[in-house]
């Protein structure tokens, strides 16, 4: 349906306020309830977010896309055996499955500096949309810096901390995890990046990590995210730490300027 019949619904004469916020304001009303269009808009956004959580990521396709670019991959699984378990047991999503661990142990332990891990997390759509394009910017940068990298590890039903076990296996000092973030109604495909220095399974905590969040088409773009991540990698090597004591000092010019904007209610 395109529009509500205007003789039945009441419009809100303050549409001009929509320029200031992405919030769902001035929706109008049918009686005192949501008009049909606003109601279905919401259901549409919720459907996209639910599907992002529940439709599994096509790991074979992601591998193929990365392999075509010349990057080696390794697909791993966690101990969360299905989606329902994954959602209710975050602890299992942090642990690699027995078969995966065995498979990792068979790989030759070449000396490496950094591991790059991609986990589906809570949004397969985020990884589907943003992992490969972001990696095609990130991996050449890492190689250029002379970092030795093992294959990119793709983890099914993984949480952030699953990267710790992988970094530990390779004895890598830098661990970068790309993961699908909990989807919001307006951003079902938001990707996050978590960086941990000297990540160790069962020892590293959230306080040891730095997070770059909100990477999607209406959020942080790939170049901004890359700049932040490279800054953190450099600083971490200098300071030999990551987490709360490693501050992101790259600037985001845009929000500060807008903060100075006037407030129409008080002018």
């Amino acid at each position, binding site marked *: 349906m395109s529009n509500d019949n205007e003789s039945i619904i009441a419009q809100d*004469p303050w549409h001009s306020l929509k320029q200031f916020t992405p919030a769902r304001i001035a929706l109008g009303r049918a009686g005192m309830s949501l008009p049909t269009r606003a109601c279905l808009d919401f259901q549409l956004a919720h459907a996209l977010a639910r599907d992002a959580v529940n439709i599994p990521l096509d790991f074979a396709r992601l591998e193929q896309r990365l392999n075509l670019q010349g990057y080696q991959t390794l697909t791993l699984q966690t101990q969360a055996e299905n989606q329902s378990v994954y959602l209710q047991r975050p602890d299992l999503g942090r642990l690699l499955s027995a078969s995966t661990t065995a498979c990792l142990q068979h790989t030759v332990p070449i000396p490496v500096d950094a591991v790059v891990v991609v986990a589906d997390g809570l949004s397969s759509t985020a990884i589907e949309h943003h992992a490969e394009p972001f990696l095609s910017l990130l991996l050449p940068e890492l190689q250029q810096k002379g970092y030795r990298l093992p294959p990119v590890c793709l983890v099914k039903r993984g949480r952030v901390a699953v990267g710790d076990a992988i970094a530990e296996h390779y004895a890598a000092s830098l661990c970068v995890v790309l993961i699908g973030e909990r989807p919001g109604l307006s951003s079902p495909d938001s990707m996050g990046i978590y960086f941990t220095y000297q990540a160790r399974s069962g020892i590293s905590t959230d306080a040891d990590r730095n997070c770059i969040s909100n990477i999607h088409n209406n959020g942080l773009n790939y170049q901004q995210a890359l700049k932040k991540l490279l800054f953190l990698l450099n600083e971490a090597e200098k300071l030999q730490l990551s987490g709360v004591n490693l501050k992101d000092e790259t600037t985001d010019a845009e929000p500060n300027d807008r*903060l100075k904007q006037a407030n129409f209610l*008080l002018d």
Partner: protein
Amino acid sequence: MYKTRITHQTYDFKSLRNLMAKATPARSGDYLAGVGAVNNLERVAAQWVLADVPLKQFLNEALAPYEQDEVTRLIIDGHDSAAFATISHLTVGDFRNWLLSEQATTAALTAIVPGVTPEMAAAVSKIMRIQDLILVAKKCRVITRFRNTIGLENRLSTRLQPNHPTDNPAGVAASLLDGLLYGCGDAVIGINPASDNLEATLRLLHMLHDVIERYQIPTQSCVLAHVTTTLKAIEQGAPVDLVFQSIAGTQKANDSFGINLELLNEARLAALELNRGTLGDNCMYFETGQGSALSANAHQGLDQQTCEARAYAVARKFKPLLVNSVVGFIGPEYLYDGKQIIRAGLEDHFCGKLLGLPMGCDVCYTNHAEADQDDMDMLLTQFAVAGGTFIMGVPGADDVMLNYQSTSFHDALYLRQVLGLRPAPEFEQWLQQHGIFNAENQLQQRPDVPALFKPSLQNLNE
């Protein structure tokens, strides 16, 4: 001691803490913690045993050690045995019967408040059905005041929550005005700041103060920053109405939030000093939620609902204007689906009211929970039938800063229509005076914006 035999099987629960956890209706957080019943029969066995436990036992067997936990000390040391006398001879099962009986009038329920401990409230709720939780909560009456009167019979208040992803003042103002024009905001106009720093908090505090002053709105403001940030804001002379803090039911969990009872007391005294309430001095706003202790790894073997009820002991010490159980925000590892969220929301409301608190509910869910708008409509309706004190008002139910779904301005108006619930009297008068609501508390039918706000919108269009 906590033993029974059902269908040729003996159930022997090793402690009151263990018994409480096993008797709790199923929820994912208790399984994550490894404390929930392994099957339905074990759960019902625990409920049978729990029903026979004397209420007095909760004063003798602390669920978290007295020596190690200041919340336990607060509960035990603050217990009023005179108020307890009416129910001191009852078991948990008797207590349920008493609560449902004609003896438990509003006055009787008010009188026992200081004699009820959180564990007693949690225990009886575990053997109550949804309709019991609704019926008893509806009989409880808790009235609080700051610049208006919250919690009167047949009233429902709303927190206007005009969050913005970058705290942009015009963005906040847009949602704020949208909410006011839909008749929302008598509980509090409360913003979750995008970044918890002093500068952002000060800016938002001044803005809310100026709006409330300019338009003479009989309500109060709150910026939901950490209590230490709010204390600094007070030191700098900021206009703080309500002090906000998230609280939990164990000392260890409160540690992880960076708070303790001493700090909360200090913050309350600082806010009282400002003397900004015109009708009363309830100047605290607390938020809680089942699972918060476990998520801080500080549940100490307790089930999440008992932990939640213990948080209300912390709340009531500081005479809050509002307490909000943010029930579905925490995610499916604690409350998996609509069914679990609905029951938890009604349990929290019941326990809070029984303990004398002005309980609101953030009827909400995240996108990774098995829940949708229909589930929220069920909780929303049942919560209002139970006499819930306040709900959230978020534009279109979509919080664009916190990324979760709560209740909309329209949702509150739905409840006003079907249940005849009015806003706080002072706010109601303001709404009617400015032609936002008509005399029947329905939105006024009009082609334009009420005169009060016309100039600010006109400036904008020029």
